[in-house]
């Protein structure tokens, strides 16, 4: 998340407060506006967590349906985004549990043939320019256990503070920190072939 996006988020939250008040009074138009402004972000979060468009879209819609009926219980002691993320993450977890099967051991070799990684490039420019890199990293992300994937996505891509991650994932702040470190370590292991070795 860039700084610009972080600032945008702050000002959006100011608008959200008014919309939430109106929606709580039963204004469906205000709720529609909330959906319109937050659905893409919730979809983005779910897409990174569940890994495919169809599930992410369905879950995003379910998230807002649930949110509508739970809106009266929203006490506004956290940002609306945090609250809606919590619903989304819980729905994602339910889906994950319903489809759960024992994952094979974490390894880069589990990447699909189309996602095979090329040798690491020599310079950061080349690295960023490589299109296939993104596919490899995304695939590696999907190999992470669900709870670790969620905290990493919330921390790295959504830029949430640990306190917010803890609220969203329903864990303590300390656990959130530990899980992010663990997720990074696992990813480093699985992405090992993609790291460039530079001379110091």
């Amino acid at each position, binding site marked *: 998340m*860039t*700084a*610009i996006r*972080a*600032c945008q988020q*702050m000002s959006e*939250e*100011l608008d959200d*407060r008014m919309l939430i*008040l109106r929606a*709580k*009074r*039963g204004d*469906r138009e205000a709720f*529609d506006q909330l*959906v*319109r402004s937050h*659905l*893409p972000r919730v*979809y*983005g979060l779910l897409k*990174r967590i569940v890994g495919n468009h169809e599930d992410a*879209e369905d879950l*995003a*819609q379910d998230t807002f*349906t649930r949110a*509508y009926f739970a*809106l*009266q219980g929203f006490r*506004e002691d956290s*940002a609306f985004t*945090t609250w809606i993320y919590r619903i989304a993450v819980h729905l994602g977890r339910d889906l994950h549990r319903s489809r759960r099967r024992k994952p094979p051991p974490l390894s880069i070799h589990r990447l699909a043939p189309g996602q095979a990684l090329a040798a690491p490039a*020599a*310079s*950061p*420019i080349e*690295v*960023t320019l*490589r299109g296939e*890199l*993104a596919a490899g*990293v995304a695939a590696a*992300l999907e190999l992470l256990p669900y709870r670790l994937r969620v905290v990493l996505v919330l*921390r790295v*891509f959504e*830029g949430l*503070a*640990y306190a917010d991650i803890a609220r969203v994932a329903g864990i303590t702040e300390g656990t959130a920190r530990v899980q*992010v*470190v663990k997720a*990074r370590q696992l*990813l*480093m292991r699985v*992405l090992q072939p*993609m*790291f*460039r070795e*530079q*001379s*110091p």
Partner: protein
Amino acid sequence: MSCAHARKLIQRELDDQSSIDDVLWLDQHVRGCPACASARRRGRQLEELLWSLPVPAAGRLDLTGSITRVNRAIDAGIAARARARTRRRRRWWMAGLAAAAAAAILLARSDWPRRARAPAPGRAMLAEPEPWTAPAPSAPVGDDERERLDHKRLEAMRDRVRDLFQECMTDLAAGAPRADVVLCAQRFDAGARLHRAGGWPVVRIVQGLVRDPDAAVARAAVRYLGVRGDTLAMETLKDALRVPAIQADVVRALGDAGDAGLATLALALRDASLEALALTQLARQRTAAAARVIEKEIQRAREAGRAPQLLPWFDALASMGEVAVPSLLELAATSELEPLAIGALAHTDGARAGVAGIAAEAGARPGVLLPVIGELGVVAALPYVEQQCRAGAARDQALACLAALGGPDALRVLVRLVQGGRLLASLAASVAAPILDRDAEAATSLVDVLVGDGDSAGARVLLDLLTERTSVASVPALVALARCDLLHETERERAVAAVAAAGTREQVGAMRNLLAGALPSEHRFAAAVVASIAALGGDAAAEASVADLARDRGVELSRRATRQLLDGMSSRTRIAQVLKPVIQSQSPKTGGPCR
């Protein structure tokens, strides 16, 4: 402090939670700890890789359709809830009716006063269930409640952080050195310590200040992020590079960021207005990675047809010293850039040591390396050149390189190659000729070395080389060989004959010295020296030399012998006959191998 602390700081850095002091401490630690340096590098690379993921395309999301579906689901949910409530009410109604009937029966049987009759079950209970309506509005949020809302506090915090930032950082002059930025950043970090401890995203707020309407704040924010040098800061700087008002500060900030800023500095190099500043920042870093960035961009510019304008880029590389040598060698491999690259290498401090180091590594490319070794005169790379002469593939280049290097060491390599049967003496002589033309002393010095090593075979090969193409330049070395006891008498005679062929009157003195030092058994050699003196200085000089020798040895030459000598000047045998009694009168010499 331990590596464990460093690992904690690395995690904190990845989390954007580190202070400038943390970053500086970590910088210092990783300089001396390869394991932590690797861990930090991998952490940053992981962040880079994660950041390289595209944002999930919201384009695939049918927003209007989704909102419609959400509304439909909400309506369905409302209807379902209403039905559920109706069912619940019906159940209660049935239960209530049964209870009322039972009560009525009981009452009818009893004499319960009629005044005590309860009203009929409420109309509401009997009426159709009300349709579901939206929840009633909650009470307006009070002031205290509002204070608890995150966004409100975040806004306030943003203002506080901005004020603090303005107070601590905006005194920085444009183009201030990194040390000044660090001082200001430390002041700001100390001020923001409590905010950070409270979990506020201080760094993110500073990132937002890059787009602040106050240019001084925006510039200071850019420099602050440069000193931090983490992945998120670099992303922000990359975005900010597009803002013309702060571009120059962004480039300086990228320079402050070290390796982390290199990728974006490469982008800045492609902008003509930022090129000079970006080059300065890269050159200032003096790291192999920075040199490599310049190298890649030079190649890129060459492909774009900008080769003639690249001199400042090569100057930048040359100013980086030894770390730039591998990059300059790479560039020298491109024929279009070779003159510029070799010119830059010639002006690079430590280039010779760098080239020698690369030559010592396995896999060095002779096609690139040999011309550079010759051009720069990297004598330390002679073993590599010799190896290439033996290998055969790049032998011609290696021989040319030897000729360019010159000196006694290059000559000795030639001698060894001939000795080992890797090179014909005639070819070696043609390589040695320019060496001797440039430095006549080289061969004489080599003779001294060979004598010192007792290398008689080497001395013989050198004699072959020098007599193959005799020139004035080789005469001093031939004189030295003529004096050399490592050689056989007949070989020394060859040396003397070669001196006679190529020398001048100046060598007469040296020849007379040779004559004076001849051993009693060497009357033939002495005769050759006298013949050589006759060739160089005339018969009179030869006669005088013999007379002096006889006087020194206490031998009186008869008039007949003198006449024989003069008559026999053209015949070495006759001269030897005359000289024999003179030479043999000398007691055998003892001492070193050379006279």
